């Protein structure tokens, strides 16, 4: 289905290292419009670093990242414009503590994109409504639960009307009962056809939301495929071992 | 040399007089620091008392220290004591009284802050490990409190040394006063002495205070976690 769509993001031979420690080693990836890509892999495999590189929060040591044909380069003059097309949500709640919820969402549309204030506010309210938090519009972040903060963070990223959403383990710091409310929002976005790259440890969510799963280890893509194939019949030993750690945990919880 | 008026420094006993003046300043601050530390520790413990009278007293004391300029306090002690009550206190002793009054207040507040900042679960986990009260204080509380206290009290010392520059204003002959006298005496022969003398005094203070400040921030960084 994604075959006919245009390619929005192209990563060519990406290399990222911290000194001698190579984190991403020659990674290639193409993301088509409307595609939802889930990146999984053991901790330290470079999946979060990959998202940070795409958003130019890390300098890269080799290769290129092209967003709609434009190179993403942290040092270039128009990096702020390119970043507007990439909506990123982090693992830790990164709302601005000195701004109300509505101000968190409208700050960038008004100050960065110079959109008229009433238009930005109306749109922000619609987004807050969509994530079920319109009644919190005048609260401050500290008054919200972790799950609510993450939903606001998603709304804030969406307010910039990004081409691609980058979600970096957005449920990893949440209490288990809050994970669902956040992931529901993402499933909804996927249904709507939003292009997303998602790093997660939630396997059942990954299976439900992904068009394509990418298994990363040692800075390479070890295996990729559609979720049914990847989760039920992984081709590589590495992926089998990795998935097995999750199954093992599941069996244990049954017997306890 | 003459351009900066530094030649004046090496005339006669001028340099020795300046260093003598610096010593007076250092002496005043050293005596006050010792008094402040000893009494400040006691005052800090006093401030942790829940007694309402103790609270009011410490509150008022701290507020005076916080608000009144040291120079005003010096005026009160120096002029007030001598003129009003007829007690003859020298300017030096007045300075030491005021510096100690100030130092005890600030030191006490630091001690109180350090003592109350140790979280309750530290006491609880020490108790859970079977320590008695004395062991808890010796092994757990005091080492943590001291680490917080030392850098900040060192900063208090540098502030005291800097403030000694004020004692000339109630007539103590310390380094500033000596400097002024030298400049006055050489006004005709060496009009540029203002540069040399005040510059040297500036550097004297700097090289006394700077290493102490560096030590404080070094310790602060080292012990910050």
């Amino acid at each position, binding site marked *: 289905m994604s075959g006919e769509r245009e390619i929005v993001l192209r990563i060519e031979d990406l290399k990222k290292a911290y000194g001698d420690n190579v984190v991403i080693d020659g990674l290639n990836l193409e993301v088509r419009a409307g595609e939802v890509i889930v990146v999984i892999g053991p901790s330290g495999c470079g999946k979060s670093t990959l998202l940070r590189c795409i958003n130019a929060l890390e300098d890269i040591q080799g290769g290129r990242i092209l967003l709609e044909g434009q190179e993403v380069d942290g040092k270039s003059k128009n990096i*702020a414009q390119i970043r507007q097309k990439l909506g990123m949500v982090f693992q830790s709640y990164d709302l601005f503590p000195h701004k109300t919820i509505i101000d968190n969402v409208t700050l960038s549309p008004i100050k960065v994109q110079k959109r008229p204030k009433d238009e930005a506010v109306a749109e922000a309210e619609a987004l807050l409504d969509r994530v079920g938090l319109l009644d919190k519009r005048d609260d401050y972040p500290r008054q919200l639960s972790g799950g609510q903060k993450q939903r606001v963070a998603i709304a804030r990223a969406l307010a910039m009307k990004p081409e691609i959403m980058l979600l970096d383990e957005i449920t990893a710091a949440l209490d288990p009962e809050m994970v669902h409310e956040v992931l529901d929002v993402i499933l909804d976005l996927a249904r709507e056809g939003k292009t997303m790259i998602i790093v997660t440890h939630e396997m059942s969510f990954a299976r439900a939301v992904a068009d394509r799963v990418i298994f990363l280890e040692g800075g390479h893509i070890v295996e990729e495929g559609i979720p049914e194939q990847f989760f039920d019949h992984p081709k590589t030993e590495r992926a089998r071992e990795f998935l097995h750690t999750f199954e093992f945990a599941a069996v244990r919880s049954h017997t306890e | 040399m003459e351009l900066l008026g530094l030649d004046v420094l090496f005339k006669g006993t001028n340099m020795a007089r300046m260093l003598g003046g610096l010593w007076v300043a250092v002496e005043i601050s050293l005596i006050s620091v010792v008094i402040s530390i000893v009494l400040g520790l006691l005052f800090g413990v006093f401030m942790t008392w829940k007694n309402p009278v103790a609270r009011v007293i410490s509150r008022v004391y701290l507020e005076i220290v916080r608000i009144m*300029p040291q120079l*005003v306090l010096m005026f009160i002690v120096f002029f007030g004591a001598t003129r009003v009550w007829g007690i003859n206190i020298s300017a030096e002793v007045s300075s030491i009284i005021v510096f100690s009054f100030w130092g005890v207040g600030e030191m006490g507040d630091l001690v109180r802050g350090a003592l109350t900042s140790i979280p309750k679960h530290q006491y609880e986990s020490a108790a859970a490990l079977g320590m008695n009260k004395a062991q808890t204080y010796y092994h757990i509380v005091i080492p943590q409190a001291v680490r917080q206290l030392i850098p900040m009290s060192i900063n208090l010392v540098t502030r005291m040394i*800097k403030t000694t520059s004020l004692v000339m204003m109630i007539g103590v002959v310390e380094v500033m006063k000596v400097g002024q006298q030298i400049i006055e005496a050489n006004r005709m022969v060496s009009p540029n002495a203002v540069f040399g003398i005040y510059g040297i005094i500036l550097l004297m203070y*700097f090289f006394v205070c700077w290493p102490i400040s560096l030590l404080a921030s070094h310790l602060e960084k080292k012990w910050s976690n």
Partner: protein
Amino acid sequence: MDFAAMADYLPLFEQAMWLTLRIGWVGILGSLAIGLVVAVITHFKIPVLYQVARVYIELFRNTPLLIQLFFMYFALPRVGVPITAEACGMLGLALLGGAYMAETFRSGLEAVDPIQTESALSLGMTPAQVMRYITLPQAVSLSIQSFVANIIFLLKETSVFSAISLMDLMFVAKDLIGLYYKTTECLVMLVVFYLIIILPVSILGSVAERKLRYGAFGS
């Protein structure tokens, strides 16, 4: 206590208070401006300027205001920079305060979580916008306590101005004590006038601290 004498002295003290307030607050505003610029320089470690800023901070934090003032007041005119005592007081206070404010702002900037910068950047803000809308407002409120302490400290430091023959409160008090021997009266008035100058700042400061700590802030 001789209240008639105190009433006679009142205008003199009042005049002196306005002088102290004028120099004090101009100096404090100056120190805020200097502190902000220097803090940004040290925060971003801008080459050359960073080294200059460090020397400035260390020099002014480790020497007494009195000597800084003497140096400026008596030495500057000798190199052809005539400066009035009042301007000297303002400049001296601004430079001294700038060194303290810079350290306060800098530690405030350091206390802002780096993730705040990253998320602002990923919303497409330029580094200048991040500074203005995200980092700076948070840094200011994180450092409000030491900020208030600095202002009180600077207002207290104004008491040395009489040394460069400015007719401030100390000057008037000392003068009157010398002339009329009304020591108690003058000392009481001195204390009262310093309370008028500093107590409101102290009270407002604690209110602001409480507001920022329990109010809008602290996620």
